[in-house]
């Protein structure tokens, strides 16, 4: 059972851990992937640079190097098309298909030796087509400088380029005897600069039919496994020797570290897809794990809540629950008893007890209160009053009020002038809930205005209190707090405190129109024989809104003595006042009604229309 009672914050921490782990893994994977890229770039493989001539197509170039047009296009990050190649240069990979260390040639193949130069600091070596043969090799020229002497001692065959038979007129084999045939073994010292070369036959110029072809070989560092990537990607399959080839789905990838050989687009997309899949997998796992843990905790929480609730109900409905120590009645469930030591479980019990107290009355309802006290849950509620969180303070006040903790009223009273409106409202409501009209003494010290909603709430709560308990309110009518005066006037009117009539009349001299308006309505509730005359005297000095109110009230509390005043109002220019006065007259009895009819007939329009309007409404 111990696993059931995991703290509620645990799942948040766990989720944070999972998220951190996922982020760490993703970042690690991403960096690893980047590292892989660097690694590949740092270990380039053989390739050569082909200068595109005339109307060469990918297919024609591919055939030349025993590759397909798609392979050539993919290797250069280009879209394949069966037309003249637009770029000036193309990078041609030297892989297992078109390059070997040995001299073994296949059928219809021609071998072109590829050299490397030890110690050369030059990056590009160009064979001049009309170079002369020397005794030890070929005459090589770079930037118009002869490099023969270097090559005499350092030119080394690295392998052989396999070309197609169709290019026989362009390439030709090189006499092996002319050069050293040392094949490099092992990992080459990185400081050594190796330049693989495809040798172009000097006789190329003799071929007048084919366009002059220039091959420039890109410097590359050869390591012991020069074409490792060919194992990862499928080798392209040549369907036939013709131009038409089958489009492969995955292009071969040949990493490089130079501008001529960027990482192919397919490689990048493939890598991005892999990263996205890994991220998605991590997220999915994290989300499912979090949801599983959350669901598990919710199930456990529900079980625990159900157990606590069952315990509570047993305690409430047991007749002799409270005859002895409450702890003795809890012994049937030691686990649940332990749970009451936890703050969250105690809060759950408080909530349930308050819920029960709100909904169930009588003997069993009182048992909720007893249980609340026996479990010392009132201390929890009191502790909340000291909380810095206003929400907790308001909740604590509410709990103490519902559980009728009268002795906590001083603590609640301290929150009457709280800076938080919600706390103030709860404190006011609690005081009124606990001691009815007696709780209104907070009005004497209240520094903040009371909202309209709070006024309605308090009056509603007080409506069930005995009226005899209403305190003397006349001091509140002189309060500088306008909302307090309005609330007091409403209390006087609601509970018909006729003894306050003269005090309320004084409020008609207030500067605030709203206070005078509420005072007029209050006087309507506690009126006497002088009230209507007071209103008539105030009429001339009042605002239009209050004038309309006065006319309405006189229609309700006035008598035949006030008909002259109403007839005077009928003569005023304001149509609303005219209609209000006409209604007031029609409400004041038959005589006033006849006077109204006579006045309207005598004065014609608009009075005749007003009369018809008032009569139809009646």
């Amino acid at each position, binding site marked *: 059972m111990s696993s059931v009672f995991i703290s509620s914050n645990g799942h948040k921490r766990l989720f944070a851990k999972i998220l951190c782990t996922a982020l760490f893994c993703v970042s690690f994977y991403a960096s690893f992937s980047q590292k892989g890229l660097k690694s590949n770039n740092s270990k380039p493989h053989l390739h050569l640079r082909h200068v595109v001539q005339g109307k060469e197509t990918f297919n024609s170039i591919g055939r030349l190097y025993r590759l397909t047009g798609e392979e050539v296009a993919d290797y250069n990050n280009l879209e394949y098309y069966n037309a003249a190649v637009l770029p000036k240069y193309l990078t041609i990979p030297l892989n297992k298909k078109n390059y070997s260390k040995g001299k073994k040639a296949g059928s219809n193949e021609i071998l072109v030796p590829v050299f490397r130069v030890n110690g050369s600091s030059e990056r590009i070596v160009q064979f001049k087509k009309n170079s002369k043969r020397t005794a030890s090799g070929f005459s090589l020229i770079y930037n118009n400088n002869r490099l023969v002497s270097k090559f005499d001692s350092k030119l080394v065959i690295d392998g052989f380029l396999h070309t197609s038979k169709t290019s026989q007129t362009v390439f030709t084999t090189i006499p092996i005897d002319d050069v050293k045939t040392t094949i490099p073994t092992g990992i080459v010292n990185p400081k050594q600069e190796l330049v693989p070369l495809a040798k172009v036959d000097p006789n190329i110029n003799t071929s007048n039919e084919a366009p002059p072809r220039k091959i420039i070989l890109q410097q590359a560092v050869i390591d012991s496994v020069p074409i490792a990537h060919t194992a990862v990607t499928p080798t392209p399959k040549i369907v036939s020797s013709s131009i038409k080839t089958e489009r492969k789905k995955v292009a071969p990838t040949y990493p490089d570290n130079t501008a001529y050989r960027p990482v192919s687009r397919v490689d990048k997309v493939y890598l991005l897809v892999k990263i996205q899949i890994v991220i998605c997998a991590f997220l999915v796992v994290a989300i499912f794990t979090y949801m599983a843990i959350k669901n598990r905790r919710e199930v456990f929480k529900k079980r625990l809540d*159900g157990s606590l609730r069952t315990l509570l109900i047993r305690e409430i409905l047991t007749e002799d629950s409270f005859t002895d120590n409450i702890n003795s009645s809890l012994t049937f469930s030691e686990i649940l008893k332990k749970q009451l030591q936890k703050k969250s479980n105690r809060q759950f019990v408080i909530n349930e007890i308050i*819920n029960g107290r709100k909904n169930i009355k009588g003997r069993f309802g009182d048992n909720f209160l007893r249980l609340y006290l026996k479990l010392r849950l009132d201390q929890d509620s009191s502790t909340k009053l000291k909380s810095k969180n206003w929400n907790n303070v308001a909740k604590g006040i509410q709990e103490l009020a519902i559980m009728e903790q009268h002795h906590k009223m001083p603590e609640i009273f301290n929150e009457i002038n709280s800076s938080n409106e919600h706390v103030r409202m709860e404190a006011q409501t609690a005081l009124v809930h606990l001691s009815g009209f007696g709780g209104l003494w907070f009005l004497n010290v209240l520094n903040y205005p009371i909202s309209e909603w709070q006024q309605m709430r308090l009056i509603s709560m007080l409506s069930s209190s005995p009226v005899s308990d209403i305190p003397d309110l006349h001091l509140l009518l002189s309060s500088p707090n306008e909302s307090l005066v309005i609330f007091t006037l409403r209390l006087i009117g609601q509970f018909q405190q006729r003894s306050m009539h003269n005090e309320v009349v004084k409020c008609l001299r207030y500067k605030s129109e709203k206070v005078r308006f509420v005072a007029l309505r209050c006087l309507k509730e506690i009126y006497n024989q002088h009230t209507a005359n007071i209103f008539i005297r105030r009429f001339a000095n009042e605002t239009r809104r209050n004038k309309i109110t006065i006319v309405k009230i006189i229609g309700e509390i006035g008598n035949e003595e006030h008909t002259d005043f109403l007839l005077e109002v009928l003569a005023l220019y304001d149509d609303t006042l005219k209609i209000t006065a006409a209604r007031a007259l029609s409400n004041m009895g038959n005589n006033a009604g006849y006077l109204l009819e006579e006045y309207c007939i005598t004065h014609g329009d608009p009075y005749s229309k007003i009369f018809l309007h008032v009569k139809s409404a009646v």
Partner: protein
Amino acid sequence: MVILVAEDDPLILMTLETYFIKEGHEVITANNGREALMQIEEKVPDVIITDVMMPFYSGLEIIARIKNGVNKKIVVIVLSALGQERAVKEAFDLGADDYVTKPFSLVELSMRVKRLVKIKVRNGVPEFMENVQTTL
């Protein structure tokens, strides 16, 4: 006697269930209107104590369905909150037999159930006559 208690507040639901079981009744519970109607279809109760406001179907809808179809002689008592006078009036129009306003007394509710069942017995409802007599 079989009592169906339909109430979305688990505390009140369990309290009523425990209380009426202690009183010797068979109690069926439902924490929403849909579940209540399903329970009624499975086993027709003698008394239904239902809250007005519930998920899926309100207490008023349950009353309307019962009184229009299943069994017009089922005793229905409505649990209403203060200020739900209009709902109570509607419940009576639909055929509810009584109502209790929250906060309510368990003893008072039990008495009302017994009184209403007694009236039904007098009117001749044969299904649970014997049980009611022994209970009362």
